């Protein structure tokens, strides 16, 4: 590895250590906010593996989150597993589910893929709604853990791991293979890339991290029901974060999650009922004026009218 890479890794490590010390400094409210922020960042970064690098716009990633949450929840409450076992199981089941579903669905392209994943997530919600051992519509209640910092460090560790995976993708043979699939799938196949395998592995990786986040979420919030953990809006939120930050980049989704979480938290406290309305307006403005995300904005040299005008012209009819 070159010196530059080592420097980046060390920089990342420093940020993680700094964040690790945060609970000692900031308020309890801030810690809760950070846990939620980490969770959204994990989801955005895990979506980035399939949506950003591979170019398959999955609209069903919330299914993996929900499956992770429910696997962990059921193992904790019904089977009596310790959390240390239930959490990895949640990630593993979500990963297997992603691989099993991904194998047929990843043959679809564009809108068809997007909708098939959306349909899968909605179907999972309905299935969980109708199953007895998941508590059906009434949901599952977890035992309460009295050390909230556990969740903070777990989310932080998972976030560090998924960011590391994204970083690895940005400079490994496997990652280049995914980008090749995004740019031109037929050409990638001709070059000898086993495209079905690559896509399925990317989807499974994406599912595993979303599942882990779901598992931690379940124990953190202590109550899950199908509507809360299979909500379509979660998928949309994490895609917006990834797009806002910059898809297919390592730090973009993280940046997007940071900025948008802060904005929506601010909106929620300042505007209360109008918060959602403004969130919608922000989505429209972001797509119109900076469709390539924050990382492109930074690379192009910051805010300027010309940058926005160029973006407006680019996709206009």
């Amino acid at each position, binding site marked *: 590895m070159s010196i530059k890479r080592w420097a980046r890794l060390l920089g990342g490590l420093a940020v993680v250590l700094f964040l690790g010390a945060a609970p000692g400094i900031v308020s309890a409210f801030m810690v809760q906010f950070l846990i939620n922020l980490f969770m959204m960042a994990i989801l955005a970064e895990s979506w980035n593996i399939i949506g950003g690098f591979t170019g398959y716009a999955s609209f069903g990633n919330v299914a993996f989150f929900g499956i992770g949450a429910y696997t962990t929840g059921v193992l904790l409450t019904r089977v009596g597993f310790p959390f240390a076992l239930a959490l990895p199981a949640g990630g593993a089941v979500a990963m297997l589910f992603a691989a099993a579903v991904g194998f047929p669905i990843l043959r679809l392209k564009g809108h068809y893929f997007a909708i*098939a994943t959306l349909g899968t997530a909605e179907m999972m919600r309905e299935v969980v709604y109708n199953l007895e051992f998941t508590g059906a519509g009434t949901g599952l209640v977890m035992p309460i853990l009295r050390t909230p910092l556990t969740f903070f460090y777990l989310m932080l560790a998972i976030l560090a791991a998924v960011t590391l995976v994204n970083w690895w993708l940005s400079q490994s043979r496997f990652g280049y293979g995914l980008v090749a699939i995004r740019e031109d799938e037929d050409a990638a196949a001709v070059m000898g890339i086993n495209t079905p395998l690559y896509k399925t592995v990317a989807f499974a990786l994406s599912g595993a991290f979303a599942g882990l986040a779901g598992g931690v979420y379940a124990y953190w919030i202590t109550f899950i029901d199908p509507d809360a953990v299979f909500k379509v809006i979660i998928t949309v939120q994490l895609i917006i974060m990834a797009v806002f930050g910059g898809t297919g980049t390592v730090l973009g989704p993280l940046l997007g999650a940071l900025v948008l979480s802060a904005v929506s938290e601010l909106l929620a406290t300042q505007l209360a009922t109008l918060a959602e309305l403004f969130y919608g307006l922000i989505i429209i403005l972001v797509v119109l004026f900076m469709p390539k995300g924050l990382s492109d904005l930074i690379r192009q040299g910051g805010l300027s009218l010309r940058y926005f005008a160029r973006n407006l012209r680019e996709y206009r009819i």
Partner: protein
Amino acid sequence: MLLLQVLVNGILLGGLYGIMAIGMSLIWGVMNIVNIAHGPLIMLGAYVTFWTFTLWGWDPFLSLPVTILSLFVYGYLLQRFILNLIVRAQLFLTLLITFGVEVVMVNLARIFWSSDLRQVTPSYAAANFAVGGLTIPYVRLWVFVTTVVVSVIFLLLMERTRLGRAIRATAEELRAARLTGIPVGHIYAVTYGLGAALAGAAGAMWGMLFPITPIMGGALTLKSFVVAVLGGLGTMMGAIVGGLVLGLAESFSSTYIGPTYPNAISFGLLVLILIFRPTGVLGRGEGR
């Protein structure tokens, strides 16, 4: 007898799904936009009818032209001044912007009409008649007849007029259409306006059968998706057939399997169709 009743219920509901999906399919087929704001357009149509009904006492069927026209204008302006700016971007960007429009519309509806359940109840709302043991509510029958009439008018517009030809040409090959002098920006806006008008018509009639709320659109967007894909994108007849299939599937599954399962079944159906026949039941061309 029950079987026949379930069949009739499914067909009557299916007509409404069909007209929703024609609009969705049109917007998707011509501009390659998956219109997440489709459900809210249906909602808006329902509220326009609700207003003309409660404020001025207009009959909901007779006020249909007003609803259709207002939704057309709304859709035209939305596409012309906002969506046209981003229409050539990647798929998830157009998806996202229509999602943003959805969020804004739903929240504005909350402000204008509050979150209360509203209903359009003309004097004949509860009336029905019996034919050979079947019970058929008048409203459902008229809704079905109206959807058929509106669909036929729309099909004629698309197939027989210069405007329809221009829309189809634009869908086929954007650059060539522009070269032959078709104002594509205007045509895109008209297309979205037509899709919105159909959604509005569906909403006007939906409001006579089911309660109206600001959040009613979400589920209807998904159903319009399912139907549009079931039938095959861009084919208008396909959307109608898809609507009937979904209506029948829901009607049968809620009677014979259980009332909590219809959504799971429609989404399961969707995923299976996508995997095995991605171009839809009546579709052609390539989907993978």
